[in-house]
């Protein structure tokens, strides 16, 4: 029954997304908001996808893997400042505390899509499966956007 409910939610979510409205997915206690990837220019072998994960459960969970047919491999990467440099570092898993929200966003934590099968085209949609330790596998659809969306709260002008 639960699986059926999840399926209904998935179909509803995809339908809503297809209509161009809110692009959210809810699977049991996990809510995924606005999964998108930036378009990639020809010659760029890798891409990045972004989304917000909310764990509504009173129990913690962990994001332990991700996969898409559009890339050879999906990894979790965070940006850290090493002195003045942007240093991209892989994370094996992403911890989700109880009632926690984790944002993957430009210039921060992102899903790195390694060895894209072809450049990501603006407006394209592609499937992405997220693997959670407790919630299991969750399949969503990612929308490709040109996007100049950037991490909020870091808008400094240096002189």
């Amino acid at each position, binding site marked *: 029954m639960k699986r059926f409910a999840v399926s209904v939610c998935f179909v509803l979510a995809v339908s809503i997304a297809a209509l161009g409205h809110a692009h959210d997915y809810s699977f049991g206690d996990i809510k995924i908001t606005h999964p998108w990837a930036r378009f990639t*220019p020809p010659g760029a072998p890798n891409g990045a996808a972004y989304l917000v994960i909310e764990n509504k459960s009173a129990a913690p969970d962990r994001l332990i893997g991700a996969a898409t047919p559009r890339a050879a491999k999906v990894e979790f990467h965070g940006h850290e400042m090493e002195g003045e*440099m942007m240093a991209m570092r892989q994370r094996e898993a992403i911890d989700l505390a109880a009632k926690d929200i984790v944002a993957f966003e430009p210039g921060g934590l*992102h899903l790195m899509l390694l060895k894209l099968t072809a450049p990501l085209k603006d407006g394209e949609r592609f499937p992405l499966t997220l693997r959670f330790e407790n919630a299991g596998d969750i399949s969503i659809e990612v929308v490709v956007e040109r996007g100049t969306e950037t991490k909020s709260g870091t808008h400094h002008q240096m002189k």
Partner: protein
Amino acid sequence: MDKFRRNPVLWLIVLGAILVYSVLEGGLLGDKKGDGTATTLATGVGIGGPFALVDQNGQTVTHENFAGKLMLVYFGFTFCPDICLAELMIMGQAVDLLGPQAEEVVPIFITVDPKRDPPEKMKDYVAAFHPRMVGLSGSEEQVTAAAKAYRVYYKYMPAKKDGELGDDYNVDHTSYIYLMDRSGNYLAHFTKGQDPQAIADGIKKVL
């Protein structure tokens, strides 16, 4: 990796980066408006200067090719999926927001990864961000010299910690959009995630 650890040029770049970082951080702390105003840093910082690189059409170009125009310069690499794409998008949009004055500004992307970004690869890549964006690569020596002139620091990092460099390495790098005047001198720089309109407004003030 040892090659990089023992390379005195790279260590000079590190020292330069630390020095410039101190100056730039001072500038950041001094700014309370955050409105995208481009103003001149204290003189003597010395960001920019002569360079000789190879453009996306295979032609050798130097700073002199851009004399008379303002330059927006970003250093990155095409394997970079997140920050470089974001910054180049912002740069392209900022130029378009200048309207008829856009012709006065040349957006330039310089790779810090010439091994994987040969000039021919840059052509379609830069065109995706702006039809007039120039993509510059060159020999390792040429790129090292250009990065040094702009006080850009970069370091090749193996994809797996303590692994071999291989072909799938990352590049840690400084991420600023530099605004240079019509003689190639430094005017201002923009940190990551700026609003394209704020950058365009900053450019308009010096046009």
